């Protein structure tokens, strides 16, 4: 339930919001206990939660409505998390299938590349890639991605987690390809591509379903960490991670600035984790996925 609310709320952001996430309301006044109060006082201290209508959760030091930013930032957090996780699954599946099915040199090359990626601390390669790409953008043939595009954190997260997905898939495929039904398919004269798609893929599908929620949870956390370090979502876009980082600068005068987005983050990730564990227990209790963030 909580998870549903956390996931759904950001999607309605544009319908319920009275203002845009970037709009300043520095000189505005709101009614608190019947008294008009400055959104940001003369010392630069923003108001706290009003618990009603506008500035439900207060404002930040630029006079921006936190509730509105929270919902819009949540959109980015969820978008990056989900797209990153899907990217990981696509890449991991591809590499795992290739390595496991072809074995030999293909396997050696892919497994070795995975080892190299694995040798980096997750967060370190994340900020290295994130910073380099955010500064220079990315040019892949005809496609050019701007440095502040959301596609960059998505790409970075998708790449970083690939070994965690490719390895278990490879192991499963190695075992599957020796099974009788694959032998039978081969004896019938099916080509490798067809065997992979119609015989092996359905059998690893469970693993994908089990991993997806847990992977999304970890991708959201990683996005937050990268954004906190300035290597993830770039301004003018906001995410829960960048909001915590902004709040960290003013933690003593306005702690709610970093507490609130953090709570949203924990609630979302927690519900994904609980959901993911449920799915795992129901489908494949032995599956083990370990990710760092």
């Amino acid at each position, binding site marked *: 339930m909580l998870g549903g609310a956390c996931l759904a709320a950001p999607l309605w952001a544009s319908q319920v919001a009275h203002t845009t996430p970037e709009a300043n309301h520095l000189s505005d006044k709101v009614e608190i206990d019947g008294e008009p109060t400055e959104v940001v006082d003369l010392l630069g201290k923003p108001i706290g939660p009003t618990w009603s209508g506008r500035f439900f959760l207060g404002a930040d030091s630029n006079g921006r409505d936190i509730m509105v930013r929270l919902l819009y930032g949540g959109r980015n957090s969820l978008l990056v998390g989900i797209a990153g996780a899907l990217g990981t699954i696509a890449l991991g599946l591809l590499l795992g299938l290739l390595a496991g099915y072809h074995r030999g040199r293909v396997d050696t090359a892919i497994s070795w590349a995975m080892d190299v990626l694995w040798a980096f601390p997750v967060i370190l390669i994340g900020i290295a890639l994130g910073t380099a790409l955010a500064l220079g953008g990315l040019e892949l043939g005809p496609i050019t991605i701007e440095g502040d595009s959301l596609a960059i954190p998505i790409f970075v997260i998708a790449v970083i987690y690939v070994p965690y997905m490719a390895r278990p898939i490879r192991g499963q495929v190695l075992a599957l390809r020796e099974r009788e039904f694959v032998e039978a398919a081969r004896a019938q004269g099916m080509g490798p591509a067809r065997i992979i798609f119609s015989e092996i893929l359905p059998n690893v599908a469970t693993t994908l379903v089990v991993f997806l929620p847990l992977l999304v949870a970890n991708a959201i956390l990683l996005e*937050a960490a990268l954004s906190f370090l300035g290597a993830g979502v770039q301004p003018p876009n906001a995410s829960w991670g960048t909001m915590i980082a902004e709040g960290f600068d003013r933690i003593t005068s306005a702690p709610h600035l970093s507490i609130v987005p953090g709570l949203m983050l924990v609630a979302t990730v927690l519900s994904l984790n609980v959901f993911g564990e449920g799915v795992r227990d129901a489908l494949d209790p032995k599956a083990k996925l370990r990710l760092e963030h």
Partner: protein
Amino acid sequence: MRGALARFAARRLASMVLVLLAVSLLVFAIFNVLPGGDPAVRMAGKIPTETQVEAIREEWGFDEPVYVQYVTTMEKLFSGDLVSYFTQLNVTEEILKGAPRTFALAIGAAIIWMVFAIALGLYSAMRVGTLSDRLLTVLALIGISMPVFWLGILLSHYLGYEAGIFPTGEYVEFLDSPTQWFWHLVLPWFTLAVLFIGIYSRVLRSNILETMDEDYVRAARAKGLPERQVLLKHVLRNSLIPIVTLWGLDFGAVIGGAAILTELVFSLQGVGQYTAEAIEQLDVPAVMAVTMYGAFFIVIFNALVDIAYAALDPRIRLEGRRQA
């Protein structure tokens, strides 16, 4: 048998060197081939003249082909002469300055997370299905779902700034004042440990529950061993093996840079913080050195865990060979 183990260890170490080589190439490529701006222009300051930029380019060897730059960087890295582009400080010395802080953080946190995880995991497994077991499960999940830096910010604000119980950050040298050193590290230790307590206690709990069903545990019980002894000698001992593996891997990762966020929030000035600053400035020599340092610890702990496993349990190597 001995020879086989030695060969396994040698092979593992050889692949380790290859992986490190690839890591260094990859990092160098990320920062040199990707469009990130000309380092000479950035080093020359705000309004550089063309001659200044040229001079810097020549002095630092930016006019050489990329592979020559790579080789010179690596040579300097191993001879300890690597110098930062921006602070002009020796990179190796900077890392050696930060390393004791990172080690102090990592070792303390690793002890804390192990002790808490064993205690909580054991307690949970003993009381499966009770309210306290469920409560601990929920707490562990919350711990896993919390961003480390957010937890650190909250702890340092409420227990440090507001309540004044702990210092809010900074590192105190052990030799200057052992008690202050300890006091300043309490919050960072716990901040770093929470995630791992969550993971490890859950893994331990399910391991214990699995082991309890094994025949040798039933046999131990049947021959009349007291429950306490069955638990400690047979169940816990065997359930701990996978945890110790994880511990080796995670400890390597934490020393290798996974503690960046904790170091930053508490401004401990360890290797992690140095790394973050180096990357932010695109300071290639510093980034090369810290990633090599980090990857070294991760790879070596991976290898140590593998070798220890192979030494303890010959089945593992056989299985590995059959699959590969």
